[in-house]
């Protein structure tokens, strides 16, 4: 199986040869990979060098926390990738963005209203949790489509607060 892992502008072609060997950018390495008691902490030996990291699934790709550095990594099956390339076009950048509560809390204020044009970094909702008021910001430019909460509402984790189109 051949994969292409992308970190920012860098691509790494990784072929999984068998359960002990991989080929990274043309070079073969001996690997020993274990999950620590079924947790997202993984232990990896690469040519006997020992690494330990957290690997978290994300909406798009993976987050790897290694030696205090966080890497956002997109992993694609090489065939899928070729298929996608032949169809032209990368992953959808546009579409609706749903702002979900990152933790349970109390809505303190919603400084935007439906139909309002917003830019990346604008505060959409202020949520109080763990005694702190947290500003939830827009990851991109757009228009506020639907606001589903109002100040004073208690929200659960992952509850949709509003949508940006």
């Amino acid at each position: 199986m051949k994969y292409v892992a992308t970190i920012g502008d860098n691509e790494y072609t990784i072929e999984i040869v068998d359960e002990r060997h991989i080929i990274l950018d043309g070079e073969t390495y001996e690997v020993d990979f274990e999950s620590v008691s079924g947790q997202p902490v993984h232990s990896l030996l690469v040519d006997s060098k020992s690494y330990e990291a957290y690997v978290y699934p994300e909406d798009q790709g993976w987050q790897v926390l290694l030696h205090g550095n966080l890497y956002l990594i997109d992993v694609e099956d090489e065939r899928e990738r070729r298929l996608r390339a032949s169809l032209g076009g990368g992953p959808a950048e546009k579409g609706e963005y749903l702002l979900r509560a990152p933790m349970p809390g109390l809505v303190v204020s919603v400084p935007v209203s439906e139909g309002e044009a917003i830019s990346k970094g604008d505060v959409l909702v202020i949520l109080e949790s763990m005694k702190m008021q947290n500003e939830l910001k827009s990851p991109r430019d757009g228009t506020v489509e639907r606001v589903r909460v109002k100040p004073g509402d208690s929200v659960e984790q992952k509850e949709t607060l509003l949508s940006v189109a």
Partner: protein
Amino acid sequence: MFNKVLIANRGEIAVRIIRACRELGMQTVAVYSEADRHALHVRYSDEAYLLGPAPSRESYLRADKIIEIAKRSHSGAIHPGYGFLAERADFAQACLDEGLGFIGPKPSSIAAMGDKAVARSTVAGSGVPVVPGTEGEGSLSDDDLLKVAPEIGFPLLIKATAGGGGKGMREVRSLEEMPALLNSARREAEASFGDGNVYLEKLLEGARHIEIQILADTQGNVIHLGERECSLQRRHQKLLEESPSPFVGDDQELRERMGSVAVRAAQAVDYINAGTIEFLVDKDKNFYFLEMNTRLQVEHPITEAVTNVDIVKEQIRIARGRQMRHTQEEIRLTGWAIECRVNAEDPYNNFLPSTGRIDHLILPTGPGVRVDTGVYPGFEISPYYDSLISKLIVRGETRGEAILRMRRALEEYKIVGVRTNIPFHQHLMDSHRFMAGQYDTRFVEERFSMEAPEDESETLPEIAAILATLVAHNEAQRAAQIIQRGERDVSNWKWVGRWERIHR
């Protein structure tokens, strides 16, 4: 003299106090909210009583219930820890009225220092320099504050008079944004301390936040235990503290001067028990009184590490009317200690709090490492209380050794289930400015980044790519292979192998 202590708190500090009581051979009584039935302080104490529902207002802030439980359990004294009721003069007074000891200062000292505005005018009166602001004016209305603000000058800080820990604090850059900020500061102060009063203070830029730990007994002895450097803050929340301060360093004269001013400030309010005087220190080594915390501090362990004084045990001894074990001459700072506050906050996502169950936990151990915590695997981090999971404290012979030891300990520390700010601390340990001790209170917000350092080992991204690919590969295989539901006790690698053979 009491032999049974009720701990009116939760989390790591409740555990810390229980430990001190245990070592002194005293009985302990825990109180807990519905969210904390499984908390460590409940498990470690001799007795535990339910206070009420999870929100602090209905549990840990219920002074009446806590006093009632203290009497019912025949506790002789109450230790308030920090936060919650720790700096409420009315609570301390209520304890005394009911014949209970209060392990802390007299209600009058809490009141004098607790209203930060009154505190500033009191110490200013005894010749201690203060930062300009609305000291000594009592509680002002929004209109009054807006009128006075331009006289102090911008930038300035709105602070909660009952405050601490950055709650109810706002930085104001101009008069226009001030009304909205006043509003949110009051709201947060009201929610955190049950008191929405605020005052203003000029914001000194490029300053350091250095505090002096003091201890005072009922026999009239007041000593200081040297300083703690607390400049590494984000949104006025301390993140890392060290003792001694790299800024004070070898300047024994400055240390003594700050120490004696701190002792004087404590004496100005007739202080008893442990307390901390916070100073802002500018680059010319001028220092200004900021406030006094009339309680045990979160960061007390670093002082314990360099002085060998157990501050919590001293607190209990003092509350029992005993003399302190040490005189000023016996206090020596030896070695270097650093504390990292490990919070359930995601440094890669704007430090947003993270809640959830701790699935897995590996604590750092080994020489010179101390972890104060209230969590364990299976514990739920709830949104009701602050985000402090644990305090990681290391001691080294020198600052260099302490930094290297902290680096090692952070790498060992594994917390699974919630996101933590451990990567933030790791980046900090690698920061050249931190290593050189050159930082002020703005450092984290203005000059610090979570971006991977330039000189990082070049193979790390490759290793990360391999890890992600292997996990993705296993996931894909598993998704393709699951025919029957349920646990497989075979390693994923075997499945991969079989899959490969089938498709050969």
